[in-house]
């Protein structure tokens, strides 16, 4: 596989390649795609690359490129079914808002797409056709999912397919908790316990669907280990997302959007904390990455190579990535900065570019 790092921004998709001869793992922009268009999700599946666009006028679109030198071609976008008469007072539109996350389904050709306003879609033919997951949409709790900050619609932000069993799926919903299916999406249940919501009245704080799951990440080698960056804390589960305990040692703050799990080491994960929702800037205007190597009992605050004064970068939920080795990391910010690390986050290198606001960062090899 060709080494690549993909950065989806508000104004295009940037394809980064390792800088030849550079010590320390620097990257350069090798190509720009869809310049000017908002990119909302990216997925590399082997040499095949998928990009979701969130066009302001013309809706959510999906494109695919086969091979590093292949041509982009448009695929049919997922479509919601006709709104039936019994939809009644459903508060959510039956129409695709945006494709927020695309993940491999563990079976040749299968992908899952998590969207706003909360619809889940599946393809079994590499995106040529999509089927709507009616079972999840028809769960009564779905109508009580809340909107994401900055938009009135809820969204499926995380899709975790169990590497041991492609029928076993976990979803993170913002705002709607953690959902599980063990039959390839035929039936669903909300499963999370142990999270709490500071933004709800006390009697509702522990309600599973009130939990604003900003992002889930699972250890590929030990898939029962799942990490969560929640709206008001970071949590870890050892049973695939049912029981959660809070990691109160997180520093310098417990708010953030992104989390990345080490693919082999179940005790290691990375977060990018920030000041909570009132302000949404890095704590003390210092951009840092928090890493735990002991399952969340303690955290290292990693700063080498990151701006430590007047940094106002926020890292959205899909904009922190780790590669398959667990050593190379990358993240991109709302102010268009990209930083990469060759050594598990010990040191960081800034990409020599000021990009548009970044929604998603992914390695080809993850």
């Amino acid at each position, binding site marked *: 596989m060709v080494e690549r790092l993909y950065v989806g921004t508000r104004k295009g998709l940037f394809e980064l390649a390792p800088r030849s001869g550079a010590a320390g793992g620097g990257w350069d922009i090798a190509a720009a795609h869809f310049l000017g268009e908002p990119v909302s999700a990216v997925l590399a599946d082997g040499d095949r690359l998928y990009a979701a666009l969130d*066009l*302001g*006028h*013309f*809706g959510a679109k999906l494109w695919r490129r086969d091979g590093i030198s292949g041509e982009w071609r448009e695929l*049919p*976008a997922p479509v*919601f079914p*006709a709104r039936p008469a019994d939809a009644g007072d459903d508060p959510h539109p*039956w129409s695709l808002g945006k494709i927020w996350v695309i993940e491999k389904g563990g079976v040749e050709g299968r992908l899952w797409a998590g969207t706003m306003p909360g619809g889940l879609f599946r393809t079994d033919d590499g995106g040529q056709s999509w089927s709507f997951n009616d079972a999840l949409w028809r769960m009564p709790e779905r109508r009580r999912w809340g909107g994401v900050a900055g938009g009135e619609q809820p969204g499926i932000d995380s899709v975790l397919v169990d590497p041991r069993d492609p029928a076993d799926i976990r979803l993170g919903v913002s705002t709607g908790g953690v959902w599980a299916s063990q039959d390839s999406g035929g039936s669903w249940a909300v499963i999370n316990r142990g999270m709490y919501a500071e933004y709800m009245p006390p009697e509702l704080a522990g309600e599973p669907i009130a939990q604003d799951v900003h992002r889930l990440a699972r250890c590929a080698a030990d898939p029962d280990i799942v990490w969560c960056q929640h709206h008001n804390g970071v949590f870890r589960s050892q049973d695939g997302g049912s029981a959660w305990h809070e990691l109160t040692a997180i520093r310098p703050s417990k708010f953030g959007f992104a989390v990345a799990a080490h693919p082999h080491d179940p005790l290691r994960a990375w977060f990018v904390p920030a000041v909570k929702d009132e302000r949404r800037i890095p704590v003390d205007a210092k951009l840092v990455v928090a890493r735990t190597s002991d399952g969340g009992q303690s955290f290292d605050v990693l700063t080498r190579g990151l701006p430590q004064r007047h940094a106002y970068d926020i890292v959205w939920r899909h904009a922190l990535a780790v590669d398959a080795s667990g050593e190379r990391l990358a993240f991109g910010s709302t102010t268009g900065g990209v930083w990469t690390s060759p050594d598990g986050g010990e040191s960081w290198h800034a990409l020599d570019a000021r990009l548009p606001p970044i929604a998603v960062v992914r390695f080809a090899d993850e």
Partner: protein
Amino acid sequence: MPTVSFTPALQRFLRVPELRVEGATVGAALAAAFAERPELRGYILDDQGGLRRHVNVYIGSEPVRDRAGLSDALHPDDALYVFQALTGG
């Protein structure tokens, strides 16, 4: 036969010339255009078949009134214009 023409902003995704189509309503004319170019539909209509929120359609100089049902009547010499709305930028 009415004509349908599409905003230049669309042409970077789909190259669509002005089309002459049969249709006594906006919906019928658009459906005829989509029959020629199926991939066009999702750019103009939402999943429930109404006009996308940030797409405007004019019959001559008049904006269409029925954005959800597309029932506005068309005459054979009408020109239908499909634009992006400034709100969606």
